[in-house]
């Protein structure tokens, strides 16, 4: 019996889809049978992040409304034979699926896969309720900004009210140089406020843009810092204990100078 993990955030644009794609790909790379489910009906994107946009025939709404069988709608990944995508419908809206249908679907996916990763839409409306309906665990993505932390706090409250206890936090797009000069909230500041368990920190990294351009998740790019962060998160999801990445700013000329004159 597999496990259903929902990736959510409240606020849009903090990296839910990128995180879902990377965790899913990372788990598949480690040998698990994985399905990624895009529940952002009307605004689907997981297909392009994975580079599978040209292969879509059926979608999530076709499955839940009985237009096709689950197997027909699943798209096999280009790189991994054990990774699948269930794309969202693009021409319907979020009321085309209800939480009961999602529960049934998740039950079916759990029998077939080791992990089902649900990419949740932004917001707290029906799309959110659909995405969390059949989930066993939740991962909350948050960037170090006031708006994202506030929305994450709201989402954590809603998850706990829906019996999804102990959600785990991913802090995304952290900029160590800004943290160092006191212009960005640090990991400890955010954990102080949200009071949930951390499952990973992903630094801001240009390689994410490049990998999204190509439709190849950064977790496969051994030279990518964000990719390394996602590889560690993947291991933690599998239950392994992995230390946090070292995100210290490399010492520059100024730092060495400061040390020289006794200020460092």
């Amino acid at each position, binding site marked *: 019996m597999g496990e259903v993990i929902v990736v959510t955030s409240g606020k849009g644009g903090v990296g839910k889809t990128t995180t879902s794609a990377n965790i899913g790909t990372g788990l598949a790379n480690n040998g698990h049978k994985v399905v990624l489910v895009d529940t952002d009906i009307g605004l689907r994107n997981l297909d392009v992040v994975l580079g599978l946009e040209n292969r879509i025939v059926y979608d999530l709404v076709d499955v839940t409304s009985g237009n096709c069988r689950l197997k027909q709608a699943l798209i096999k990944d280009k790189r991994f034979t054990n990774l699948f995508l269930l794309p969202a419908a693009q021409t319907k809206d979020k009321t085309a699926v209800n939480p009961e249908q999602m529960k049934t679907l998740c039950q079916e996916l759990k029998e077939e896969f080791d992990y089902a990763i649900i990419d949740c839409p932004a917001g707290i409306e029906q799309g959110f309720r659909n995405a969390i309906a059949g989930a066993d665990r939740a991962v909350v993505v948050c960037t170090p*900004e*006031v708006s994202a932390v*506030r929305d994450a706090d709201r989402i954590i409250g809603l998850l706990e009210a829906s019996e999804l206890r102990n959600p785990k936090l991913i802090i995304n797009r952290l900029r160590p140089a800004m943290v160092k*000069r*006191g*212009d*960005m*909230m640090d990991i400890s500041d955010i954990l102080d406020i949200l009071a949930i368990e951390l499952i990973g920190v992903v630094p801001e990294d240009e390689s994410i843009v490049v990998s999204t351009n190509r439709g190849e998740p950064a977790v496969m790019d051994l030279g990518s810092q964000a990719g390394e962060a996602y590889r560690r998160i993947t291991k933690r999801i599998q239950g392994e204990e992995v230390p946090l990445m070292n995100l210290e700013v490399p010492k520059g000329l100024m730092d060495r100078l*400061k040390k020289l004159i006794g*200020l460092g």
Partner: protein
Amino acid sequence: MLEFISRMLGRESASSKSVAKERLRLVLVHDRASISPAMLNKLREDLVKVISNYMEIDEAALEFNLCQDDREVALVANIPVVKMKRDYSAKGQDLNS
């Protein structure tokens, strides 16, 4: 002189992160204060129970609200006292026993 260099090198400048934290703290007090009416009722009952150990109050005229303004969230209770109880100390001990 050392202090001047220090400042030049970007230390001791007021950080925007502390501004962010303080603003978040305030906004979350507001967000989280939207507690359910059921919980507010329970709190009201408990409060009446405790106060009744010490004084007789007019429950019908009791006002009990969670008030919010820009700066803070406050629990405001207006509790008319009808009579003070003389044996409050004995009652108080009852509570602990």
